[in-house]
């Protein structure tokens, strides 16, 4: 029986795996890792979870070469699946060709409003009272303390990433949320995106924007 890890955009595999395993009736399970980029320690955790649930891990398949290499390194039976990646199939709202990225160097001060139809990469802070909005993603290399709006024209996959994400208000598509009150953990970039219609903030995932 083959278990399929959930779609990256919807859920984290760590949250879904116990549920998947409990529904599995056969002792031997194969895993389809899909688009997940899993390193050795992730895979070790994954194996431990599978054995703990009373199953035996068979074959691992995935579409990402990094995962396959890591699995082989752990001595697992791994191979690359032939189905093309979701990421390649789906037209992506966000591309990072130079013309699709608006780069702005400088701090947005109170009263400023930076608006673009492209993904905005801001090198500087967004101060309280300033606003930054994009029809695609908003990326802030600095402190975001004003109002940020990603996906202005309704893109629900848009996200907001900042080195310090403490905005007055966050908006993604039509959803509005207040920023968190507590101070952020030092040295941790965070991202906000829509999950089940609610804006959720979590540590930013490292991703290769070129590949998206």
């Amino acid at each position, binding site marked *: 029986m083959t278990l399929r890890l959930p779609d990256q955009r919807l859920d984290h595999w760590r949250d879904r795996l116990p549920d998947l395993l409990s529904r599995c009736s056969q002792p031997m399970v194969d895993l389809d890792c899909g688009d997940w980029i899993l390193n050795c320690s992730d895979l070790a955790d994954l194996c431990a979870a599978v054995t703990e649930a009373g199953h035996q891990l068979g074959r691992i398949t995935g579409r990402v070469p990094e995962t396959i290499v890591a699995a082989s390194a752990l001595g697992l039976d791994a191979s690359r699946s032939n189905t093309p990646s979701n990421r390649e199939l789906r037209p992506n709202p966000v591309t990072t060709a130079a013309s699709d990225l608006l780069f702005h160097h400088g701090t*947005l001060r109170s009263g400023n409003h930076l608006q673009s139809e492209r993904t905005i990469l801001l090198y500087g802070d967004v*101060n309280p009272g300033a606003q930054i909005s994009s029809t695609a993603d908003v990326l802030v290399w600095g402190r975001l303390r004003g109002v940020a709006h990603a996906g202005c024209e309704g893109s629900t996959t848009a996200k907001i990433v900042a080195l310090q994400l403490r905005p007055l208000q966050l908006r993604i598509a039509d959803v509005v949320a207040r920023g968190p009150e507590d101070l952020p953990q030092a040295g941790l970039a965070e991202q906000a995106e829509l999950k089940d219609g609610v804006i959720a903030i979590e540590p930013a995932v490292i991703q290769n924007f070129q590949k998206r």
Partner: protein
Amino acid sequence: MSTTRTILICSGKGGVGKTTTTANLGIALARQGAKTVVLDADFGLRNLDLLLGLENRIVYTAQEVLAESCRLEQALVKHKQEPNLALLPAGNPRMLEWLKPKDMQAIVALLERQFDYVLIDCPAGIEDGFKNAAAAAREAVVITTPEVAAVRDADRVIGLLNTKGVQPVQLVLNRVRPKMMSNQEMLSVDDVTDILALPLLGLVFEDEQVIVSTNRGEPLTLSDSSSPAAQAYGNIAQRLQGEDIPLMDPSQARLGLRARMRKLMQTRIF
């Protein structure tokens, strides 16, 4: 190219101490030997003459100078005790509409021929009054108090100054209450500089003497007072002249000499 420094004294919010700072800074610079003129560009609410005690000596304003109905020397009001300091009122409060950016540039060009420092007292806000006053400025000193509204408005003004290419922009944090700051009831110096990201030119502690001297029309820096605010303005003037004077430490402000010594003795160096 003249070596005159034309400095705009501005803030976003009203009542944070622009005029007081302009008056005190003017006196302090003049005392240090720099020929200084203070230009009251806030002619809607003309107060600078009042603070300098020169209210009753104004006959002409910059308006008449530009209209060539008087000479610049006639419009300049020399300070009684401080011959290096002069005041030029920009206009009559009843003629709110006259001053345009080019007028301002013309006045400042005249002043730059004979003074080392031109301090422009700017009206609060970011409307036309501010834009006119800022038209001729090369440098700016932004005044703010440690309150969220004042900091927010200052931020906005700094944004506008940046678009006008005014450089450098420095910050004076006014009306600091060390006790409230140490109790975390007031924005700290770090909180403010964190948001505004400007070099700090000086801290001025809240001081009752400021009110006394304002009402008397004698700036604090003139009366040789040893009050903290007078010292702070003196330090700011020296820093403007390029001297390296350490900033006052709010946590030490309330301690007497003996307590400060004791604290010093208890400080572990190694």
